[in-house]
């Protein structure tokens, strides 16, 4: 029964992810006083991309063709491990929060290699910038994980959710809030959102994530775009379900699962709205100012660990 849940959870993530990206785009359009494309626009785009021809650079090797599948697979693998609908998950013993973080790093690694392969300067630039941002975001993620694990006594995701659900007061503890702040900044960094990276830019010199995928077309591009949307979904689900876990079903019954889906949607919509407003309000940071922002998030995570420790 639990395995059906796992598959359903992953399927839900894959199905909802493009809609989430489309929601943020729609909200930004409305904030720009435009009508904008409907929320389900990314689905049409993905469907179209799967039917397009694939053009591959003459300099590219087998890695260029394999990378989209590895990126997609590692991001999808994470959807099996993250508590989206219910805890405890039968795959809890497969991977904890550290496994999740490093699987996402695996996808970034291959995406960067795929950017370097065609030998285009934009790909190299995107790869170099992406790895810089990913490397500098790692300490924050590790410390935020440890802040959470300190409270829950384990890095196991189901454990962390159960602990927060059992102790509602912990939700407002400074350690919790600071860790949320730190992880929110890391979410923006890892998913390529303003102020770190502009997902809608056309200027190659301002790109980080987009620059790596300039050479991809057709179904490869579709897989990579989908994986990026799933990554956004995963981060939002983590932010929502680790810090505000109410709604996540503990006992599997149809009502609890329905409640879980509804609460997940509410959390996603709220986070999408926050990101959309943030992207409208804030301008993109210069690349060499991004480490300053990431060190702010590191300090927040450090304070989170310290306060969790002091108030335990």
């Amino acid at each position: 029964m639990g395995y059906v849940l796992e598959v359903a959870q992953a399927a839900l993530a894959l199905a909802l992810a493009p809609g989430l990206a489309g929601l943020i785009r729609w909200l930004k359009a409305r904030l720009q006083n435009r009508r904008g494309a409907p929320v389900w626009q990314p689905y049409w785009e993905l469907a179209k991309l799967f039917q397009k021809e694939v053009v591959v650079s003459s300099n590219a090797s087998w890695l260029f063709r394999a990378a989209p599948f590895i990126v997609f697979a590692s991001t999808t693998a994470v959807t099996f491990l993250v508590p989206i609908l219910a805890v405890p998950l039968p795959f809890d013993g497969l991977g904890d929060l550290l496994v999740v973080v490093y699987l996402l790093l695996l996808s970034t690694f291959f995406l960067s290699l795929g950017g370097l392969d065609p030998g285009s300067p934009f790909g190299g630039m995107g790869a170099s910038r992406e790895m810089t941002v990913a490397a500098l975001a790692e300490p924050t993620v590790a410390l935020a994980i440890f802040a959470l694990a300190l409270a829950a006594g384990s890095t196991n995701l189901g454990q962390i959710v159960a602990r927060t659900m059992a102790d509602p007061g912990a939700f407002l503890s400074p350690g919790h809030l600071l860790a949320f702040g730190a992880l929110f900044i890391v979410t923006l960094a890892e998913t390529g959102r303003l102020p770190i990276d502009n997902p809608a830019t056309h200027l190659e010199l301002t790109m980080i994530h987009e620059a790596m995928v300039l050479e991809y077309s057709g179904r490869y591009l579709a897989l990579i775009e989908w994986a990026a949307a799933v990554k956004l979904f995963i981060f939002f689900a983590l932010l929502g379900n680790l810090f505000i876990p109410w709604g996540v079903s503990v006992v599997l019954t149809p009502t609890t699962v329905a409640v879980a889906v509804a609460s997940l949607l509410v959390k996603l919509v709220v986070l999408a709205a926050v990101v959309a407003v943030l992207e409208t309000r804030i301008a993109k940071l210069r690349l060499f100012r991004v480490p300053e922002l990431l060190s702010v998030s590191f300090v927040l995570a450090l304070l989170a660990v310290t306060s969790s420790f002091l108030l335990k």
Partner: protein
Amino acid sequence: MRLLSKILRVGLATEPLAPGGDDVLRLLHEVDARARQLFGRALAIREVDAGSCNGCELEISGLMGPVYDSERFGVYFVASPRHADLLLVTGPVTRNMAVPLVKTYEATPAPKLVVAVGDCARTCGVFKGSYAVAGSVDQIIPVDAFVDGCPPEPTAILRGILAVIGRRR
């Protein structure tokens, strides 16, 4: 906060697309049904400036703004021709831009469409006969439709694009 209150005050600025304006659109041939079906809901455009005076570019940039809003039809602009379905070409093709235009066309995956915008794209406009001009767009790459005007209005360009993908509002 002032920004947010201003956004709320302005509301929706998009104007509905009025029908008509067929006089400036020249469809060279009926677009392949398969391409029309594929691009009906989502069309990625790569704009190529093949030596124009940028007058057409200013009009095209209006398409991305709130008033003309091409995105509501699923029509959006991309940075790389590898991601594109339609090439929006402006300008008389100058000698220096002839090869890059061909390379852009080759870089675009099939099925692909080309819409040439402006008088210069079809007839070389005021630059006809210049030593720097290689020829009109259809002499360099196969074109599916022309949108006349110097420069054409954003609504005309938008109608031209929608006509090419068979989606007339």
